[in-house]
């Protein structure tokens, strides 16, 4: 897909509008801060500072046994477990949320404010307009995810260094999440909003659709917490590829089903 200058103008405007709209900007900052600063801080402090006998490790032992390496240090194991296996699942919520908020504003918000029709009177085809808008939503979502990751790394490194004098190395799950899962899941979230935008009349209504994406993530979390499985890198890679394929299919479906009348209904 080659983006033209005209499409780029739409994408730039969509991102700019998002940053100017306080109602949309709020969830785009609060949720990432929660998962990249607040949650890691709480866990790092619990794992590294609280007396170990007060930290309930029962039930986690099965999971610790699946972790790579030979460390027997419960604090190190716990930290590794949380930062490399549990936090990444929470992190996937960031692109789901960011893409949903952005797409809801970009598609349903514009429909609600009657600005979408004006764009339709441009010399761009419906597909080109949708490509530009989808690109804006996915790009912003990925950017927010990357910024959150950098913030999380800085927070954790600083805290771990101040407490232990050592650094922390992110596991292989992180690049898979950032390179594969974040863009794929962003695209699926955007596609769900776009699909639902013909029926949804308000942005809030459209955003509710993304709940369907959070549900499987919750199952992943529950699975890990209960010791059912550990989200190993190869499992995450398979999941990422699967999501990328699904993202490709749903995007194709959207482009194949575009019609001015249906979109403006």
């Amino acid at each position, binding site marked *: 897909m080659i983006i033209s200058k*005209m499409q780029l*103008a739409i994408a730039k405007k969509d991102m700019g509008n998002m940053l100017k709209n306080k109602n949309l900007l709020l969830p785009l900052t609060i949720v990432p801060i929660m998962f990249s600063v607040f949650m890691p801080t709480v866990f790092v402090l619990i794992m590294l500072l609280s007396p170990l006998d007060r930290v309930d490790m029962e039930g986690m032992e099965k999971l610790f046994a699946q972790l790579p390496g030979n460390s027997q240090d419960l604090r190190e194991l716990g930290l590794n477990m949380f930062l490399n296996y549990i936090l990444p699942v929470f992190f996937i919520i960031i692109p789901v949320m960011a893409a949903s908020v952005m797409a809801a504003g970009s598609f349903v918000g514009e429909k609600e404010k009657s600005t979408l*029709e004006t764009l339709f*009177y*441009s*010399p761009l085809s*419906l597909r080109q307009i949708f490509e530009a808008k989808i690109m804006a939503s996915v790009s912003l979502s990925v950017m927010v995810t990357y910024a959150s990751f950098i913030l999380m790394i800085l927070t954790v490194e600083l805290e771990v260094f101040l407490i232990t004098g050592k650094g922390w190395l992110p596991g292989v799950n992180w690049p898979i999440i950032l390179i594969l899962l974040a863009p794929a899941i962003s695209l699926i979230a955007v596609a769900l909003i776009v699909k639902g935008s013909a029926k949804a009349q308000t942005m809030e209504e459209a955003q509710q659709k993304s709940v369907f994406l959070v549900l499987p993530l919750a199952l992943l979390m529950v699975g890990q917490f209960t010791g059912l499985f550990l989200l190993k890198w190869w499992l995450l890679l398979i999941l990422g590829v699967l999501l990328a394929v699904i993202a490709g299919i749903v995007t194709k479906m959207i482009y194949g089903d575009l019609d*001015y009348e249906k979109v403006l209904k």
Partner: protein
Amino acid sequence: MVAIEASNLSKVYDTGKEALKNLDFSLHQGEVFGFLGPNGAGKTTTIKLLTGLLTPSTGKSQILGVDPSAEPAKLHGFCGIMTEHAQMYNLLSGYENLLFYGEVFGLEKEMAKARALQLLERLELTDAMYQKLGTYSTGMRQRLSLARALLHSPQMLFLDEPTSGLDPESIWRVNDLIKEMAKDEGITVFLCTHQLRYAQEVCSTYGLIAEGELLAKGNLRELRALTMDALTLELKAENIPLTENSHLEKVAENRYEMKISEVEEIPAIVQRLARNGTSIYEVRALEQSLEDIYFALIKRKGEGHDHL
């Protein structure tokens, strides 16, 4: 050269509503065509069909040789479209909005700036150009929408109720701009409105529509000829004999009106009244306005004269 050609164009919505019935007409380049009718008559549906935003249920149309249903994006490249539902961005200023649409229409940045400034000045929006659109009044929004539609120097202009919400002075300016564009640049204008008096000031030809059906099309002279009573004879007189009551309608004290077909009828009427002792102070022949014609046609349609 034919600018718009529509044949047998119909639209039935999913709800079953028949919004447009077998519309047939053609327009020549440079015409300012007033498409007139009340709200809900099918005007906006027609604009959306002619600009490719709706697919016709039957029939087809061509705008300067382009089929709107097949190549809407190509059509939008040379058409300026302003409808009531096509809004711009409240969080951007009027100027930023125009620059954005300039980019979307593929204008070079400097070209877009120059054209935007020229149109803002022409439509008296220069003072408000840096204000957010959200602070604009309805009239200012309308004028900015017109500027947006003209930004890429279109060959064809579709305007849906362009003067709604405008004060009389702004209406005059918009009219002036439309007439000038049609005259100097040869732009064809398809203008929808329910304000018939306004249309009479700006349009060269007209199409009258009601309940999705085109009642008549033509210039004012042709439309007047369609109705039997092309003129209204206005009299200021006293002592009208009772025998004349069936022809003359009393509209005020000593003021009477009578529908006639041509001015040649007037001398005989005046002579007859004078012979019967009527004192005549004033005689005027008023040509039918668009409004009179529209209502006459609606009345005839109601009486079952389907072919006008």
